[in-house]
C-alpha cells in the first residue's frame, strides 16, 4: 500500500514536472538531417554560449527526410529552424509554411556573400526562404580496382551512354555485382530523379527548346512525353532489365546509403551515378575518419556524365542542387530563429565545414579564400559547374519528381517504356490539368 502510494505520488510529481518543463525547455528548435550534424551542431553550441538560450536539436535520418519535413511543417509540428533540400523551398513557401528572410538577411553582415543564383533557387515570388548550405555537381564515380580487373583503362572517359553500358558489361563479366548503380525507384526518392534520371535526360536529346528537360520553361508546361524521356527510360531498361547490369535491390535496400557504401567497401561496385559530395560521403558523410587524399584517389575516380551520343546532344551533362536552412512561418520568435541560422552560417564554422567535407561553397568569402582555391578536388569539380543547370524549382516539381521515381520503379518492375511513358503523361494530366502538359515529337 505504502509502495503504491509513493509510486502514484512520484508519477504525479513527475508528470507535473514534465508538463511544466516541456514548454520551457527550449526556446528555439531545429530539425536537420544527421549528415549535416558537423555543420549544425557546432553552430548550436556557439548559439547557446552566446545567447544563453537552449536549443532543442532534432536530428533526423537522411532517408525519408523530405517527407518528414513536409509533413511536420504542414501539421504545424516542425521546429523553428528547418533544413530542407533546395527543391522543396518553393513548394513549402507557396503553401505558406516558411518565413521570408530578406529583411533579416539585409541586417546581417555576411548575407552579401551568398551567390545570387543560389538564393534565387531558394526563393518564391521574390522572397528568399532559405540560405544554402552547399551546392553540388553530379558525375559518375568508379572503383579503380574493379576497372583494372575488367581490363578497362583508367582514367576512364566515357563519351556516350554506349561507352558506359559497355564498361558496365565488362565489369559484370568480370564478376562485379553492382556494375552500374543508376539510382532508381521510389525508395531513393529525390536521388533517383537527380543523380539518375535528370542526368541522363539532359544528355538524351538536343538542348533546343527544352527537349531534354522535365519542364518547358517558356510555357511553364510539364513535358509528358518526349524522345528524351523515352531514351532515358530506355537506358534504365537496359541497365536493370535487358542487360541486368545491377540487381535492382540496392535501390530498395533497408538503408540504401549504407548498402551502397558497404558494397563499395567490399569491392562489389563498378560505377555509381552520384555527386560531388561522395568525395567524403563514400566513407562518411560527416567527414570524420576520412582516409587520406592519396588513399581515396587510389580507390575511386570520377568522370563527368557523357551525353547519350545522339547527334547534337551535349558532350557532358550536369545539374546542381543543394540544401538550405530556413525558418518556420510558425516560429515562436523569428528573430531568435534567424539568429540561430546566422550562427550556424557564421564564416568560421561554415568555412571549416565546407573545407573538411569538400563541399562546393555557396559564398564568395569562402570560395575565394586561398584554402578553398588550393583544394585540387574542389577546383576540378567546380569546373563542371561552369555548364550546370538547376532543377525546375517551381511548385509542383516535388510531385513530378515523385512521378519520375515511380516511372523508373515501373521499369524495374518489368513494365515496358511505352506503358510507363503513357502512365507518366496521364499522371501529369491528373495532377496539373491537360493545358499544363505538353509533348515533344
Amino acid at each position: 500500500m505504502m509502495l503504491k502510494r509513493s509510486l502514484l505520488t512520484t508519477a504525479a510529481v513527475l508528470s507535473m514536472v514534465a508538463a511544466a518543463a516541456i514548454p520551457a525547455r527550449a526556446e528555439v528548435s531545429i530539425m536537420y538531417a544527421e549528415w549535416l550534424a558537423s555543420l549544425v551542431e557546432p553552430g548550436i553550441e556557439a548559439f547557446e554560449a552566446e545567447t544563453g538560450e537552449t536549443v532543442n536539436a532534432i536530428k533526423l535520418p537522411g532517408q525519408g527526410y523530405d517527407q518528414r519535413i513536409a509533413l511536420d511543417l504542414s501539421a504545424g509540428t516542425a521546429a523553428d529552424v528547418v533544413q530542407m533540400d533546395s527543391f522543396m523551398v518553393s513548394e513549402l513557401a507557396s503553401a505558406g509554411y516558411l518565413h521570408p528572410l530578406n529583411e533579416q538577411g539585409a541586417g546581417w553582415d555576411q548575407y552579401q556573400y551568398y551567390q545570387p543564383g543560389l538564393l534565387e533557387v531558394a526563393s518564391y515570388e521574390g522572397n528568399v526562404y532559405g540560405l544554402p548550405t552547399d551546392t553540388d555537381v553530379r558525375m559518375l564515380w568508379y572503383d579503380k580496382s574493379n576497372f583494372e580487373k575488367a581490363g578497362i583503362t583508367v582514367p576512364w572517359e566515357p563519351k556516350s551512354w554506349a561507352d558506359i553500358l559497355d564498361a558496365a558489361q565488362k565489369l559484370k563479366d568480370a564478376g562485379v555485382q553492382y556494375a552500374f548503380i543508376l539510382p532508381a525507384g521510389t525508395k531513393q526518392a529525390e536521388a533517383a530523379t537527380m543523380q539518375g534520371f535528370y542526368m541522363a535526360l539532359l544528355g538524351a536529346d538536343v538542348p533546343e527548346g527544352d527537349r531534354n528537360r522535365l519542364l518547358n520553361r517558356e510555357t511553364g508546361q510539364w513535358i509528358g512525353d518526349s524522345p528524351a524521356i523515352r531514351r532515358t527510360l530506355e537506358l534504365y531498361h537496359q541497365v536493370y532489365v535487358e542487360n541486368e547490369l545491377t540487381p535492382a535491390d540496392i535501390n530498395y535496400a533497408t538503408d540504401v546509403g549504407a548498402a551502397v557504401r558497404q558494397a563499395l567497401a567490399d569491392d562489389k561496385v563498378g560505377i555509381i551515378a552520384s555527386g560531388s559530395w561522395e568525395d567524403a560521403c563514400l566513407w562518411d558523410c560527416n567527414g570524420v575518419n576520412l582516409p587520406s587524399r592519396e588513399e581515396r584517389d587510389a580507390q575511386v575516380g570520377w568522370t563527368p556524365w557523357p551525353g547519350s551520343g545522339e547527334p547534337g546532344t551535349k558532350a557532358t551533362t550536369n545539374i546542381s542542387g543543394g540544401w538550405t536552412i530556413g525558418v518556420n512561418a510558425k516560429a515562436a520568435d523569428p528573430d531568435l530563429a534567424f539568429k540561430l541560422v546566422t550562427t550556424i552560417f557564421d564564416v568560421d564554422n561554415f568555412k571549416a565545414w565546407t573545407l573538411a567535407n569538400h563541399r562546393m561553397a555557396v559564398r564568395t568569402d569562402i570560395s575565394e579564400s586561398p584554402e578553398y582555391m588550393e583544394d585540387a578536388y574542389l577546383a576540378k569539380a567546380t569546373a563542371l559547374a561552369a555548364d550546370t543547370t538547376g532543377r525546375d524549382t517551381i511548385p509542383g516539381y516535388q510531385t513530378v519528381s515523385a512521378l519520375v521515381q515511380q516511372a523508373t520503379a515501373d521499369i524495374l518492375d518489368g513494365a515496358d517504356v511505352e506503358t510507363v511513358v503513357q502512365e507518366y503523361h496521364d499522371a501529369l494530366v491528373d495532377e496539373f490539368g491537360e493545358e499544363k502538359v505538353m509533348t515533344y515529337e
Partner: protein
Amino acid sequence: MKNQANPWLTNNLFVLGLGMLPALLLICVLLYFTAWAFAFSFTDLALVGRKAVEWSWVGLDNFERLFTRRGFLEALWTTVIFVFFSAIVGQSVLGFLLAALLRGSNSSIKTVVEVCIMLGWLLPDIVAAFLWSATTSQTGLINSLIIVPLGFQPVNFINDYALPVVIVANIWKGTAWSYLLFSAALDSVSREVVEAAKVDGATPFQRIWLVQLPIIRPHIATNMLFITIWTFTYFPLIFAMTGGGPGTQSTTLAVFLYNQSFARGNLGFGSAISVAMLLIVGVLSLFYLRLLREPK
C-alpha cells in the same frame, strides 16, 4: 438495459451522462478523423505547394483514379496475397499448430519455443526489418551459412523474392499473437470433453479437428478479425525492408498510400485510398463477425 442498471444511477441521469462522457469524447474524436479523411478524399488537397492552401473539390475524380490508373489495383492484389499468406495461412495456422503441439509438452521445450516466438513480437519493427534484410540479402546469413557452403550461387532473396521474404518476416513477427490467443483458447476447452473423445477412440488429429476446433471457433474468428485488420494496414516492416520494391513488387496498399500522400504530397488521392481501405477492411470485418456467431 436501463432496468438492469443500478437504481441509484437510473435516478441520477446526470451522473450516468457524466460517466459516459469519456467514451462519447473518444467516439467523437474517432469520427472526426474519419470524417476528415472522407472529406479530403473529394478534394485535390496537397501536402505542399499552392494546393495545400487553395485546394478545391474534385468530386469523385480521386475514386475514379483508383480504378483507371495503374497502382491501386496492383497494390490491392499484393495486399491480398500478403494478408492471405502472412496472416491467415502463416500466423494463424502456425500459431494454432504451435499452441496445439506445445500443450502439455515438456515445459522446458515450451519455454524455449515461447521465448523464440515472443522475441519476434517484442522486437521493434525497424529492428526486425534490419534483421531480416541481413538474413536474406545476397551476403546474408542464409547465403553464407547454407547456400554458398553447399556449392550453389548465392541467391539474392530480397531482390528476387521480395514479397515472399516480407511475408515470411511478417509471419515470424506476428505468430506470437495467434499462439497466445490459441493457447488460451485451447486451455478453455474442458479436459473431460477431450478425454471423452479419446475414450471413444478419436485419433489425436480427430480430437483437434472435430472436438477442439469447433469449440474454439469464436476464438478463431476473433483472431482472424484482428490479424486481418492489422496485416491489411501494416506498414513499417515492409517499408523499411523493401520500400515496396524492387519496382513495385512488394507495394502493398499501405506503402502505396504512403507514397501517394507523402512522397507525391497528394493528400486528396491518399485519402481516397484510405477510404477504400476502410471499406475493404469493413467488409472483411463483417464477414468475420458473422463467423463469430454460433451456428444454428
